[in-house]
């Protein structure tokens, strides 16, 4: 079943992932999968246009480095602007989930 989800959800997950440390795309995918016990799975290819869009908005910055297995990889890092954006998105998300919970808890 396919359902429209709020715009920006994947962006928010990416920004959150990068609060820990700079990561390459593959590590972001793995992190989301692990942290949600495999409940959420990012469609792997779709991550990259999102990363490039966030970089364009200057919410994240990118640089090339060496991966854990000594391969050249593009690492993304959260910028101050991105951190601010994440705070905004988190508060919006909390308000939304609270509102939905209220609706669902009505008898």
């Amino acid at each position, binding site marked *: *079943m*396919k*359902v*429209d*989800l*709020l*715009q*920006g*959800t*994947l*962006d928010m*997950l990416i920004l959150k992932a990068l609060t820990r440390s700079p990561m*390459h*795309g*593959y590590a972001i*995918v793995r992190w989301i*999968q692990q942290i949600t016990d*495999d*409940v*959420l*799975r*990012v*469609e*792997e*290819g*779709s991550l*990259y*246009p*999102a990363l*490039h*869009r966030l970089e*364009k*908005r200057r919410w994240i910055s990118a640089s090339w480095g060496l*991966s854990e*297995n000594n*391969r*050249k*990889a*593009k690492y993304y890092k959260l910028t101050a602007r991105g951190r601010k954006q994440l705070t905004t998105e988190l508060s919006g998300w909390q308000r939304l989930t609270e509102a939905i919970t209220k609706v669902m808890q009505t008898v």
Partner: protein
Amino acid sequence: MLGIKDKVYRLVAFLFSPAAQRCIEDELRFHIEMRTQENMDCGMAPTQARQDAEERFGNLESIKSDCLKIHCDNHVAMKALNCLLGIVVAFGLVLRLTSSTRGIGPTGDLMAMSAILLRLLIHLRLKGSPDLETRLMFTSNANKKRPMRISQ
């Protein structure tokens, strides 16, 4: 299969930002190789591991084009446009300076002015345009044991 628009983006990126195109390819290839390696570490045969990695990744060509579009929207397309309009302005001015005695000087003026005005209009139009529209899809399965997939 890539559409004409995608092919134009590829060409513009190839001409004005070959390094960006290479970076995107390297980045996507790295992802597929990492997934392939992980699959092999889990016991899959190399061919099967690669196939699975490519399937999980999705349409590589289309994703590459999407990344290029974002990059082109950023500055490569503007670089190409500036270059083209610069040539028109220069040609117009050369026409104006060299052809005044033959009576086609005003054509040169018109070309140069049109190119400058067009550039100004594009600048004003871009200032007010929103970011690329994004749409997220959330796919869930009735079966709770299956993971929910997030795509874009």
